[in-house]
């Protein structure tokens, strides 16, 4: 009988220990107010795929101060897995979190969430057509999602030709008149033209293999960079190129070829949209009217793989994201338009995309 009693007490002990080992880390909502700062730069830090550790950083160029993890600190919840891009419109920042299948809308001064769009496949970029209509491009889906940002709802789809779900890839968008242009990247080689009135693809233009990014300059010219694929790819492998495309006629005006094996990316424009920047190991700069690509870089490579690039629309300062080893917090370098280092600061893991307030 003594033995049975002991067993009973042991069972009670086990239950008590089992219930005492839970520990949660609750976050507190922090108050931010950046409404007084004239300009600000958001940095989307992708984090590591499947780790759910993407973060959002905010940099004030005037005071040269940075705040990291502002989404988590303001909302007491995680941003999610792979913050891919951010678009700002009318005081709201729309953060596209790719592998969390969500787009968060935040107040750009308080960083507090004001809404979210879900039911997405693998969102990449968001483009506003109007206050009540926006497009969200996708990876692994042959559709571009049409959403109503005012209601945070998916309202329809744009079917993209020549893709299946598995080979689907639509990326960055720019608008010229009533047409939105989108580059198709992964195992693709096209720029699609979408009529925003009918929400249909009305034309497409074949460029080189895997156009990575897209920009529209002050002269109505589209600029896209192809990465040329990779060695062994059944889709092909070629020298990458920079293309200038006339948006009106939707034809290629000029092709600037890079060396075979180069990996250019991140075509960007300055505030007046007359100077072009991109990454190709170094940072390069070119006038949008130039007929030949530059032979010397704007900023030489310092031994890393630059992962993101933006130009301040007001000052022309150039910001470069250095993901270092993609595991530790990345570094942002800020250069003047003359190429002088002005500031540098650490942000989150794998900084990739920027958005100006």
């Amino acid at each position, binding site marked *: 009988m003594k033995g049975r009693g002991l067993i009973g007490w042991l069972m009670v002990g086990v239950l008590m220990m089992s219930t005492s*080992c839970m520990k949660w880390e609750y976050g507190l909502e922090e108050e931010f107010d950046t409404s007084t700062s004239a300009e600000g730069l958001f940095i989307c830090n992708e984090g590591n795929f499947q780790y759910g550790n993407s973060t959002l950083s905010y940099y004030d160029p005037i005071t040269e101060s940075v705040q990291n993890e502002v989404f988590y600190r303001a909302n007491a919840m995680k941003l999610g*897995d792979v913050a891919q891009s951010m678009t700002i419109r009318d005081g709201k920042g729309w953060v596209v979190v790719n592998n*969390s299948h969500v787009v968060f809308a935040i107040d750009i001064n308080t960083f507090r*969430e004001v809404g*979210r769009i879900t039911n997405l496949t693998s969102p990449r970029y968001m483009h506003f057509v109007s206050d009540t209509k926006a497009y969200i491009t996708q990876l692994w889906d042959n559709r571009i999602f049409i959403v109503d940002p*005012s209601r945070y709802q998916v309202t329809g789809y744009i079917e993209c030709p020549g893709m299946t779900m598995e080979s689907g890839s639509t990326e960055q968008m720019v608008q010229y008149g009533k047409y939105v242009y989108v580059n198709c990247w992964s*195992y693709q080689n096209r720029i699609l033209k979408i009529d925003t009135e009918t929400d249909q693809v009305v034309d497409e233009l074949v460029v080189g293999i895997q156009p990575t990014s897209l920009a529209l300059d002050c002269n109505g010219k589209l600029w896209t960079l192809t990465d040329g694929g990779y060695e062994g790819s059944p889709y092909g492998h070629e020298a990458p190129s920079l293309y200038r495309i006339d948006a009106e006629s939707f034809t290629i005006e000029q092709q600037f070829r890079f060396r075979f094996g180069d990996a250019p990316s991140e075509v960007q424009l300055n505030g007046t949209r007359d100077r072009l920047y991109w990454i190709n190991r170094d940072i390069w700069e070119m006038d949008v009217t130039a007929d030949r690509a530059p032979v010397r870089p704007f900023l030489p490579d310092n*031994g890393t793989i630059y992962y993101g690039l933006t130009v301040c629309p007001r000052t022309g300062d150039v910001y470069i994201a250095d993901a270092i*080893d993609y595991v*530790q917090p990345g570094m942002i370098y800020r250069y003047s338009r003359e190429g002088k280092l002005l500031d540098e600061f650490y942000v989150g893991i794998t900084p990739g995309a920027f958005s100006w307030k």
Partner: protein
Amino acid sequence: MKPICRYILSTLLSLLPTLMVAQESGRRDWSTRGISIPEVTVSAARTMKDIGTQQTSFDSTTLKENIALSMADVLTYNSSIFVKNYGRATLSTVAFRGTSPSHTQVSWNGMKINNPMLGMTDFSMIPSYFIDDASLLHGTSSVGETGGGLGGSVKLSTRPAAARGFGVQYIQGVGSFRTFDEFLRLTYGNKNWQVSTRAVYSSSPNEYKYRNHDKKENVYDSEMNIIDQYYPIERNRSGSYKDLHLLQEVYYNTCRGDRFGLNAWYINSNRELAMLTTDYGDDTEFDNRQREQTFRGVLSWDHLRKDWKVGAKAGYIYTWMAYDYKRDPGNGVMTSMTRSRSRVNTFYGRVDGEYYIGEKWLLTANLTAHQHIVESRDKNIIRQDGDRAIVGYRKGRIELSGSVSAKWRPIEPLGIVLVLREEMFGREWTPVIPALFVDGVLSKRGNVVAKASVSRNFRFPSLNDLYFLPGGNPDLRKESGWTYDVGVSFAVGREKLYSLSGSVNWFDSRVKDWIIWLPTPKGFFSPENVKDVHAYGVEMKADLEVTPATDWNLSLNGTFSWTPSINCGEPRTPADKSVGKQLPYVPEFSSSVTGRIGWRRWTFTYKWCYYSER
């Protein structure tokens, strides 16, 4: 890495064999109360095979005390090595001494079972019910068995059941969230033959409610303004699994010095990959799943004589793996977003021999061959010409590994071993891999034994490292390293009262050309030789058994490791702060404790493990 802190695994009812047949019952008294066998101290001369090795062996109590566990769980709670897992029936990898999982070589009945594509082994696919002997060979000690174990190696094996006549064992485990584990073993044995059939079937919908603190649910007013937020209670519906394992063993012993064995193991696994807690997708619209079918078979022959022994083994592994990521686009049909398939065929052969020259020398030699044929089909695409194509690769590689060793015991307290190993992967040879082991008895009274060893080692890139599309890098160099070990162990006790044993071991190892996958500007990952790593530290373990009174038994087993694993490479950029620091996701400290209180046939077990955060 999240710390796995203070997990309590309480095996309250350690009633292992609940149904045994063909067992004659005796007096009612002990058949109901059980027999408490007093502790027996077994004394034997130190074997020459283990001179100088740092080895952790797991006894049958450890392996079978909770048969619902996988080998990953067993290693987590009973050793100091780092077991990384994401929950039950999810990828579980094992790493020694601050190295990576691909630096751990794993063998089953002598045949290497590391996936040749990935280089590592998923321990969640190894039920402890199928393993009769398991041991860890730390650092240099692995060179005597195999090459490539820059961290160490794990030896897993089965053995004859020692059955007489027919036997049946059936056990059912029932767990939370409708988790069921079924175990069945049929045995037959006589003087010459031992036949065993084991089956394990584990399944769970793994469906449970939890409050998600990584998300908040929004409450909107009619103008779509957020008027409230809260951490939602969610139901995990995306982590179900069904795993079937079958193991057939046939052993024949001629009783005249020849033994033959057949081991055949079949795995059929179907596992969902649970959504992240930060995933806002509808779990009914997505299907993220991996499936695997694996067959492993080994034929063995051992010929034993008084002073020598030869053996031969032949084996075959077939693995089919499928990964599917699907979404319902709205038409009710799950459509593939990613459809990945891989097939691995491995042919294995091994010959080995041992020869004793008197009582002071033991010479050994072995040669092992693995031929891998791998096909990876990762993505279906539409080419520029409109045709369909598949992104993937198909490669073969032969791997040879041979070693000779001389083990010398000039006087009883001292043992010295020299091992020379040579490996060839594809067409590339390693330089000669030397390993030297020395041990000596410092005190017979406390069984104090000091050990020291030094070895060089190499690890070749896996096939995915070399050929995966996109990103495979055929220009990778093999990783290499030197490891030094020094340790001391002791064992004391008093019969029927207590026994205490322990060991402490210092190691120091440097790995050059560490292979790591990094993103490229083209949007995919690619492996590079980047880091020189200095891993060093201390491993300690202690075991205490106490018999305080008749019918009572107390035991306490503990391990502790301090394993700094420092990046000694060049900074990748001026901003790189990782140089001189611990590698990410590698814990610097780890520890485990198991305590047991036994009373007759009842056992209360408390298990705890800890990994520091990095």
